[in-house]
Structures are given as C-alpha cells and as structure tokens.
C-alpha cells in the first residue's frame, strides 16, 4: 500500500495552488528569460536602462528569430550537434550493452568472489574522479588517444557501476524458475541472457540508455580534457567557448543555449515515465 498524501478541504486546496504557482515563477523564469532573450534585438536588450519590467521584457515584440542563424554562423553549432549526437549514440550503445552483460553476471550467475566484487563496484561510485583523472589522462595520451573521441567512448564500453547496479536490481526481480527451465532444455547462459532476460528488461535498459544519453549530452569535463580540435567540439564545450569568445552577444548566446537545452527538454517530455521510475529506484533502496 502506498500513500497519496492527506485529503484537503477547499481552503487548504486553494492555499496549496497559490503556493505552488508562486514557486513556479523562480523555477520557470530562467528558462523563459533564456528563450525570450534569444528572440530579442539589441535595442530590446540594451534600451531597458530604465530597468523597468513590462510584458515586453519577457515577450519581445517584434521577434528576432534571425538570432538563431546568427548564432549558428558565429560558431558551427550544427557541427557540434552532429558531434554530440555521435558521442551520445556510441556511449549509449556501449554503456547499455556492457552494463547489461555485467549485471547478468552479478544477478544470475554464482561465482566465487561475486559479493566482494559487487561491493567493490558500488564503492567505486564514491571515488572522486579527480583521483584517477591524471593517470588516466597520461594513459590515453600514451595510447595516442588525445584529441580523439576514444577517451570518451571506450570507457563507456566497460560498464558503468551505476547502471550495473540498476540493472542488477531489475534482473533479480525476474524469477529464476524461467531460466532454470531453459537450462534444463539445454540453453547456455548467453542464450538465457539474450533470449529471456533482455526482452523482459526493456524498461531498465531504456532508463539506462536515457541517463547515458543525457550524461553524454551534458558532459563538459571529458571534451575539456581530451578534445583540442574545434571541428570536434560537442555542444557543451562549444557553448562554453561561445561565452569565452563572444560573451557579449547576449541574444545569440541565449539562442545557442536554447538549441542546446530544448532537445533534452523534449526528450524528457517524451520519456518522463521511464525517467522518474529510474530515478525513484535509485534512492536509498
């Protein structure tokens, strides 16, 4: 049984709506301000020296949609977008496949040292990245990977502790009787994994794919350390470069930020359920 919170009388209901609506303002205003600035002309941005607030502060009139092509011409954001998508596809594929394989090992196969290794894997999640950052950098450098996408893509294929944890939890809820029956029929572990467990685990796989996609989309430190060729920048790094180089072009900067943010928001709306379920199963259980 779960709770849905207390039932309320009319007065408390109205009060609840008022408080929630007031709180929505700080939650939404930064995003509204971003989009509204991205559609303003210079005079609309700077001639606000009376510091007043009016409807036109948030809803510019006339609109200046040409800021978007302007932004794309200032820095090649479409190239950055392509780079980001490429990185997202590679890392999603790598992380989901490898984490599922590893999770099956931890959830369904009994081998010596399993529990110790599982605990060790969980512990690595608390290890600050700064500790391993420098030796890992010099390792990739000596492999000749500096300046390529390999330092971002290859580690994704070695499974992520977080996703392995999520998937292990999920695989454990699948009853062992089914795999036992398949084993009696002579199926090997790999067959059971690919034919039986994976098709039943689509929600967990989708959650991890989504998290990884967003993680790579947002990743800033990876490209900052390893990508030195502007033609290879992903969006997150490109946007930071925009601030450094053209920080004064407010409208174009906000247009670029909007281009970077909107796809993630759209993705969220389409996959809201997968999202919330995934996060909810993480918390302290």
């Amino acid at each position: 049984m779960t709770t849905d919170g207390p039932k309320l009388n009319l007065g408390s209901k109205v009060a609840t709506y008022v408080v929630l609506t007031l709180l929505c303002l700080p939650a939404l205003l930064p995003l509204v301000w971003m989009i509204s600035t991205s559609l303003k002309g210079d005079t609309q941005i700077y001639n606000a020296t009376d510091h007043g607030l009016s409807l036109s502060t948030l809803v510019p009139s006339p609109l200046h949609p040409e800021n978007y092509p302007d932004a794309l011409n200032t820095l090649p954001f479409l190239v950055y977008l392509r780079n980001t998508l490429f990185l997202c596809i590679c890392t999603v594929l790598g992380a989901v496949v490898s984490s599922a394989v590893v999770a099956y090992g931890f959830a369904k196969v009994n081998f010596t040292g399993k529990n110790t290794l599982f605990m060790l894997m969980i512990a690595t999640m608390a290890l600050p990245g700064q500790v391993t950052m420098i030796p890992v950098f010099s390792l990739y450098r000596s492999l000749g990977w500096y300046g390529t996408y390999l330092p971002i893509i290859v580690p994704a294929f070695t499974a992520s502790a977080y996703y392995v944890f999520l998937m292990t939890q999920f695989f454990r809820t699948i009853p062992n009787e089914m795999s036992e029956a398949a084993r009696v029929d002579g199926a090997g572990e790999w067959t059971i994994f690919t034919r039986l467990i994976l098709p039943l685990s689509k929600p967990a796989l989708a959650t991890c794919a989504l998290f990884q996609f967003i993680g790579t989309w947002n990743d800033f430190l990876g490209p900052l350390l390893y990508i030195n060729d502007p033609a290879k920048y992903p969006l997150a790094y490109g946007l930071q470069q925009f601030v450094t180089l053209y920080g004064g072009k407010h409208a174009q900067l906000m247009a670029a930020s909007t281009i970077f943010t909107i796809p993630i928001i759209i993705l969220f709306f389409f996959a809201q359920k997968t999202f919330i379920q995934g996060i909810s199963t993480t918390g302290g259980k």
Partner: protein
Amino acid sequence: MPRGNRDKAKQNLVGYLFISPWLIGFIAFTFWPFIRSIYLSFTRYNIVTEPKWVGLANYKMLLTQDELFYKSAWVTIKYAIVAVPLGIVAGVALALLLNINVKGMSVFRTIFYLPSIVPTVATSVVFMWLLNPNIGLVNRILAVVGVQGPAWLSTSPWAFNSLIMMALWGVGGSMVIYLAGLKDIPVHLYEAATLDGASSVKKLRYVTLPMMTPVIFFNLVMGIISAFQYFTQAFVMTPNGGPEDSTYFYSLYLYNRAWKYLDMGYASAMAWILFLVVIVLTGLVFRTQKKWVHYGG
C-alpha cells in the same frame, strides 16, 4: 565430488566472462590509475617528461606554503556545509508540498523537475545572464520592489551566494527521490497515528520524517561527495576563481594546477588529500547513521 568441482569451475568461468567488461575497465581505468596517482603525488610531473621523485615535497608545500590550497578547500567546505543541508531541506519541503493530493499535481511536479535536467553548462550561461548587474532579470525585478541588486558574480559574498542559488534551482532532481520515498511510507502507520489522535504536525514529526531518513541519508552522502567535486559551474562562470578567489573551488584549483601549469604531481597530491577528506567525512556521516536513520517500518 570432481563433477561438482568442474561445475563450480565452469560457473566461475562463466561469471567472470560476464563481468569481464567491468573488471577490465575497473583494472585499467580505476584501480591502476588509483595506485599510480599515489606514486605521482610524490613526484614532479608535467605529462611530457618522466615523473621525478620528490618525496613529500608536494604535500609539504601544499600544507605549509600554499594559501590558495587552504582558500579553495575552505570555499569547497563552505559550499558543502551550506548547499547540501539547504538542498535537503528544500528538496524534502518541495516533495511534501508535491505529495498533497490535488488535481493537476503532475503538472507541478514536471515544472519543478525541469530545471534539474537542463545541462550544467547551459544553466551556468543562463544564470550569468540572469545575474547581469545592469540588464539582468534578477536585478530588474529587485529594482521594481525598490532594491538595488548587487553585482552578483563580481562581488565577494554574492558570487558564492549566486552558486548556492543556482544549486537550489536544480533541487527538483533530489525532490523526485524524496517523493518516491514518501510514496513508500505504509498507509497503516498514518492510520495508527490517526487512531492515536495525532495531529498533522505530529504525523510529520513522528511518522513521515523518520520514515524518510534512509532517503535523506542517501542524498546527504551523495551530496557531500558531489559538493567536493564541484567544478563545471565554477569553471564556466568564474574561470579565474571569482572576486577575491571566493569561488575558487578546490577542483577548479586542482584543474588549473594540472592543466594550466602542468603541475601534475602537485595536482595528484591535491587529489589524494581530497580523497582522504571525502573518505573521512563519509565515514563520519555513516557513523552517525545509527543515531538518526530508521531502516524498516
């Protein structure tokens, strides 16, 4: 007997094959670098030439002569002390509010969750613009109510406060976890409390909050660990450490030491001090667990 052994050996082989992607990655990208960074912390190393052994020199220098080390450590600790508890209080309060049973609540939940999925670099860029001293939205709103807003990111206490504010904007991320925790509290506990004549305040104090402590504990630990690695926002918004180094976070200083000055041995020593502090702190938090975290109903 031999047959059982052979089965066990086969099971082991299969098991290790399945976990091999993680095991290989762990050894190559975590364990070996972890050990190697201890060694590097005792050397002078610039990536290009071989590391040169200097004994305890890096640690000595850090602890006795480097003011920026203490300054950045303090900024980071201050951030953890302020942002983590604030985030927990705001997240729990918001979750309690969003758990009330009224129509249209799912829309509000979506709205409050939204900020937490905006990419960090975009959030930083948008806040820089929001906080623009002359034509930013925040100071314009303040002007309407007759308050002259500060030059947020370029004056000392305000730059730091801006980052706290920005962290609170993203509180929806942990709110969802608290909300899930609230949904898991068994109804019979509330029913029993009602039978005992408990008021809503008492129910909150003696049922809801104690039942939420495992989730709060989880968020506290994760919050501390990530506060100590706070980097991207500081790097984008105040790459030089902000006014009077007031937003010169530890990880930002570490990054600059390593990649701006190619002082990799020194940065490795900094990383190890960070690691030890995080271990000790999380260890202490785990020890307080018995006193306030309630597991099971």
